């Protein structure tokens, strides 16, 4: 029977924490981008679509490296924004949150967009002619009717966040108890002699969390169908 070390427990908790924080942080941005892509016509819409979806096709290591260049001490954001504010992101769990958010963002936007596209345009027009301004309409009509997309996108992003490896290891490193998540811990166990059992134990933890998330997703979906 494998016994988890303190740092293994920390890795499990950190994985959950990073995935949850990244998902919550991405929600308002995901909703805003999905709204723009669904309802607005503007120059550069295709470019925005490409940029948002790029993390789906780019290797996560590339994303991690680009984030490192951007957020590092000599990067544009690192040098001009973070340093004056006294914020250090690289090789902290916060960097892992950013990496996870960037990698999972297109999945969230896609789900919310799919939900928004099913909203009858007449409902939005009815709302406007009944006296609601555009922001009022977004909050009282579009947001509540996008709730399925928001939930599906959140769950998808959370699940993707649990498995994030490539981008995280570049920007946050693999520091046990600080930035080491389940995938990074498994990687370390696999790389070390006699680490197979512990690697397998963490794999089982990972599978359990993923199955629980999928079951929750399914349950929520059925509940919503019943509510209809």
């Amino acid at each position, binding site marked *: 029977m494998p016994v988890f070390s303190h740092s293994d427990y920390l890795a499990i908790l950190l994985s959950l924490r990073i995935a949850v924080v990244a998902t919550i942080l991405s929600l308002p941005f995901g909703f805003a981008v999905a709204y723009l892509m669904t309802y607005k016509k503007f120059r550069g819409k295709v470019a925005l679509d490409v940029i948002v979806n790029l993390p789906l096709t780019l290797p996560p290591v590339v994303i991690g490296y680009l984030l490192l260049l951007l957020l590092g001490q000599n990067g544009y954001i690192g040098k001009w924004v973070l340093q004056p504010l006294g914020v250090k992101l690289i090789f902290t769990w916060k960097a892992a949150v950013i990496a996870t958010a960037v990698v999972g963002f297109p999945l969230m936007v896609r789900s919310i967009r799919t939900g928004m596209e099913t909203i*009858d345009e*007449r*409902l939005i*027009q*009815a*709302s*406007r*002619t*009944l*006296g*609601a*301004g555009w922001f*009022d309409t977004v909050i*009282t*009509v579009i947001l*509540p*009717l996008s709730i399925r997309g928001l939930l599906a996108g959140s769950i998808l992003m959370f699940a993707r966040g649990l498995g994030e490896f490539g981008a995280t290891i570049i920007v946050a490193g693999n520091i046990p108890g600080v930035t080491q998540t389940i995938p990074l811990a498994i990687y370390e166990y696999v790389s070390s002699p006699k680490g197979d059992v512990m690697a397998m134990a963490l794999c089982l933890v990972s599978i359990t969390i993923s199955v629980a998330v999928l079951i929750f997703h399914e349950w929520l979906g059925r509940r919503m169908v019943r509510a*209809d």
Partner: protein
Amino acid sequence: MELRVAAQKQFGTFFLDMDFTIEGRRIGLFGPSGSGKSTLVSLVAGLHHPDRGLILIDGEPIFDSGQAVNVPPEHRRISMVFQRPHLFPHLSVKGNLLYGYKRCAPKDRKITLDSLLEVLQIGHLLGRGVKNLSGGEKQRIAIGRAVLSNPRMLVMDEPLSALDDNLKFQIIPFLKSACEAFAIPYLFISHSLTEMRIMTDRVLSVAAGRVVGQMTAEQLARNSMGDSSVGYKNLLRLMAPRRIDGMYAYRWGDGELLISGGAGLQETLYELSATDIILFKRHPEAISARNLLKCRVGEMFEAGDRIGIGLECGSDKLVAVVVREAVRDLEIKKGMEIYAAVKATAFRQLG
């Protein structure tokens, strides 16, 4: 209410170019599918804006490209009833009804929820979710939602076309009573002549993105007699029937009309096709038709290749349509007395 529109709008290959002023509280917008009716109302409601031109309501500009005026839809106070109810699925019936009311400035809140519930008879639906309503109930809530937003004008974009005939004529009295009780001027869009005649006084006729003419609903129906396959329909609102030999007898003109079928309601709207009226120069001794009406020819007018005959029967009127040869044979002239026979089964109950 006075509505002035002088606007142009290009929508793909469709070009709308309208210039008109129309006055009245019950305005109709009539035209075939694709004539630009819905485009025009979307410009008036502010859901789209013209490429150039102006739109004024009672002299107040709500759009004027020359003065860079474009009042957003939420400030125009023009609420809409669509072809389908389009109720907010995440809100209750009460939530839907109050959506516009809550957003209406307190000084403009003249119609209250209680008075609306009474007129539309929807009080019993208040606690329900919108998914548990029938088609007719949903449309009544949609009408209520628009009316309760206390608009200065109501725009109804074919609000009856998605309903079957039975339901349609159940909804019409609610539509009329809501607008009349709360004195809301409206713009009613339809391609049905019958709906136009029931709901409107003045009609703007449009085709291919342009205004064809402006007339009364009755005039529109008569103009369409020649080219419409359904011809002219007389609309008779009859009241307080009594039962005779399996038929209903209604007071009408100088006497009674006998009608077979129908539900015998206290007030019923019947339709009678102008071609279902047979004219006799003299009293026929015996006929199977149960209604023989002694009338005076009040007017005669062209109806395509036929002639429309306006019949005055006491205080009520009917329109019959006959071919020219019949007019010659019967020597029909304005002012002469004539007999009109109508079968008791020729009446169609509308609502």
